[in-house]
C-alpha cells in the first residue's frame, strides 16, 4: 500500500479560496435567511400601517380623545360608508381592563402557589408530569373554555355562587349588588383567570428556576426553613420575573376574544358593578364584525388599533422585564 503513495508535487496549485460561481451561494443564502427574518417585521409593520390608515377616518370623525373616552357607541347603518353613528370606545376599553384585572387578581396568587409547589415542594417523581401538564394546558384553545364556561361552568357552579354572593352581601356593598345576569364581567374574568393560570405559572416556574443554587444552599446552610428560603431568596431574586410573567398573562387576558365574548354580556354599556354585563374591545370586534356596515367596520378597525396599542405596550414592558432573566427556553407563549 505505502508504495503507492505519490511523492510527486501536485500538478496545479488550486487556491483554497474558490473563484467559482459557488462562492456567491453563501452570500445569497445569507440574504435569503435575512429576508425570512425581516418578513416577521414586515408582516407586523404591514398590519399596523394598514389598520391605522384604515381606521383614520373614524378618528377624524370622532376625534382621537372622543373615540377613546366617549361613552356612547351606536353603530350606524349607512351603506355608502359615510359616518352616521356615534363611536366612543370607552365602554369596551373599560370592560377589557376590568375583566383582565379580575383575571389577574384571581390567577396570580394561584400561579405563584403552583409554581412554588412544583419547583420546591412536589417530589421528584411528581415534578416532571406536573410541569408538563401545566405546559400542555396552556395549549387548550380558548373556544373550549368559552363553550365549557357558557354551557356548564357558569350555569352549574359559578352563577349560583355569584347569585348567593350578591344576595348575601349586595345589600351592604353596592359593588356586589344584583342583578346578576348569567353573563357579566366577573364570569368572563373568572374563566379568563383559569385560562391565563398555566401561562403565568409556566413563566414564573422558569424564572424561579434561574435562582442561583449557591444562594439557596447558603440560606439552608444558615438554618433557614424551606419557607424562609423561598421568601428571602427565591421570591426576592425572582420578583421582577414574576412581575413580567404577570404582565404577560395580563397581555393575554386583554387580547382574549372568544371565551370572553361568550361570557361577558355583549352590551354596549359599562358599569363599575362586578356583575355588570359589559363588553370588551376584542370581543366587540368579533361579535359585531359579520353584521357591520362599512362605517362600523372602520370604527371596529379603530377598536382594533386601540386594542393593539394597549396589548403592545403591556407586552413590550413585560418582555423587557422577563428578558433580563435571559430569554426563557421552553416557554414559547
Amino acid at each position, binding site marked *: 500500500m505505502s508504495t503507492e503513495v505519490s511523492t510527486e508535487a501536485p500538478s496545479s496549485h488550486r487556491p483554497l479560496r474558490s473563484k467559482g460561481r459557488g462562492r456567491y451561494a453563501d452570500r445569497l443564502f445569507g440574504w435569503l435567511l*435575512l429576508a*425570512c427574518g425581516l418578513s416577521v417585521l414586515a408582516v407586523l409593520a404591514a398590519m399596523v400601517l394598514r*389598520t391605522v390608515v384604515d381606521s383614520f377616518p373614524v378618528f377624524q370623525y370622532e376625534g382621537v380623545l372622543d373615540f377613546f373616552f366617549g361613552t356612547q357607541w351606536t353603530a350606524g347603518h349607512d351603506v355608502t360608508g359615510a359616518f352616521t353613528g356615534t363611536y366612543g370606545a370607552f365602554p369596551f376599553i373599560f370592560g377589557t381592563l376590568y375583566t383582565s384585572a379580575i383575571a389577574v387578581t384571581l390567577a396570580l396568587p394561584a400561579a405563584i402557589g403552583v409554581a412554588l409547589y412544583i419547583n420546591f415542594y412536589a417530589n421528584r417523581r411528581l415534578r416532571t408530569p406536573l410541569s408538563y401538564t401545566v405546559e400542555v394546558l396552556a395549549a387548550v384553545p380558548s*373556544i373550549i373554555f368559552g*363553550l365549557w364556561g357558557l354551557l356548564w361552568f357558569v350555569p352549574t357552579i359559578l352563577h349560583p355562587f355569584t347569585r348567593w354572593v350578591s344576595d348575601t352581601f349586595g345589600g351592604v356593598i353596592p359593588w356586589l349588588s344584583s342583578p346578576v345576569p348569567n353573563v357579566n364581567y366577573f364570569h368572563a374574568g373568572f374563566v379568563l383567570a*383559569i385560562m391565563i393560570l398555566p401561562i403565568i405559572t409556566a413563566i414564573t416556574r422558569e424564572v424561579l428556576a434561574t435562582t442561583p443554587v449557591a444562594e439557596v444552599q447558603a440560606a439552608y446552610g444558615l438554618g433557614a426553613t424551606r419557607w424562609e428560603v423561598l421568601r428571602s431568596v427565591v421570591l426576592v431574586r425572582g420578583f421582577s420575573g414574576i412581575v413580567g410573567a404577570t404582565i404577560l398573562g395580563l397581555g393575554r387576558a386583554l387580547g382574549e376574544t372568544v371565551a370572553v365574548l361568550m361570557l361577558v354580556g355583549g352590551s354596549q354599556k359599562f358599569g363599575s358593578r362586578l356583575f355588570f354585563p359589559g363588553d370588551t374591545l376584542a370581543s366587540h370586534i368579533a361579535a359585531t364584525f359579520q353584521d357591520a356596515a362599512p362605517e362600523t367596520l372602520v370604527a371596529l378597525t379603530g377598536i382594533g388599533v386601540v386594542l393593539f396599542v394597549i396589548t*403592545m405596550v403591556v407586552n413590550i414592558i413585560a418582555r423587557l422585564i422577563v428578558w433580563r432573566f435571559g430569554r426563557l*427556553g421552553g416557554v414559547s407563549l
Partner: protein
Amino acid sequence: MSTSTAQLEPEQLTATGHRSLKVKGANARKRQRKDLAVKALLTIVMIIASIPIVLIILEVARRGAAVINWEFLTQEEPPPRREGGGYAAGFVGTLIIVSWATAFAVPIGILAAVYLVEYGKGLMAGVIRFFTDVMTGIPSVFIGLAVYAIIILGTGQRFTFGAFPAAVAIGIIMLPIVVRASEEMLKTVPDDLRAGSYAMGARRWQTILKVVLPAAAPGLSTASMLAVARGTGETAPLILTAFGNVFVIWTLFNQPIGALPLQIYNGARQPFAPGLERAWGGALALLVIVLVLTVVARWIGSKAKLGERH
C-alpha cells in the same frame, strides 16, 4: 455570643464552650410551624388550581363522547334544530386552512430562526428577536382584522372571505411561535458539528442545510407541531377571514369556508339542543387534536434533548 451561651446549661455546650448545634432557638417551633403551614397552603392552592382543568376535560369528554361517531365526522351540519349530521365542513375547512398556514409559516419561520442562530449577532437580529417575542402577544383578533384589511379590503374585494385570508391570518399567528421555538432548538445543536462540517470544506449554506438542520430536525418538528396546535384552535381571526360555512368547501379562494372552532362557536351560541350537542362533539374533537399534537410535540422534543445529552 457570650450572652446567649450564658443562659445555657453546661450539657448544652460543646467542649470548646460554644452552643451545641442540637440546641434549638427560642422561636424554632414557631418557624417550623410556619413552614408546615406554608407547605399545607401551597398544596391546597395546587389542588384548587388543578380542579377547573380536570372539570373541563371531564365535561368535554363526557358530553363530546356521546356525540362523536362516524356520521359526526363525515356529514355536513343540518339546521341547529335537527338531530344528526356532523362537522365535516369544519374538519375539512380546518385541514385546508391549517395546511396552507403551515406551508408558509413553517419554512419562513425556520429560516428566520436559522438567521437568528447562525447570523444573528448584530442589532438587526436583536430587533427581529424582540419583535418576534412581542408578536406572540398580539391579540389574534387584531391579526384577523389586519388580514381582512390587507387582503380583502386592500385588493378591492378581488379576494373575499375564504380559506386564503384565513390561512394567512393563522399563518401570521403561527410564525412567531415557529421562530421562537425553532431558535431554541437550533441553539442546542453543538458547535462541534458545525466546526466539523467547515473542516471538511463545506460552505456555510451546506453546513446549515446538511448538518445543522438535520441535527435539529426532531426539535424543529416539535416547534412546528406546537405552532400547528396553536393555529388549529384559533377562533377569533377566522370569524373575520373564513366567515364560516356549514357545507364542505374545498376551494381556496373567495368562498366562505367553515372551520372546527367556528362551528363550535356558532353551535354554542344558538338555543337548540341538537346544535349544542354537536358543539360539545366538536369541542372534544378539537381538544383531542390539539392535545395530541402538543403532547407528541413535547415528547419528540424531550427525546431529542435526551439524545443530545448522551
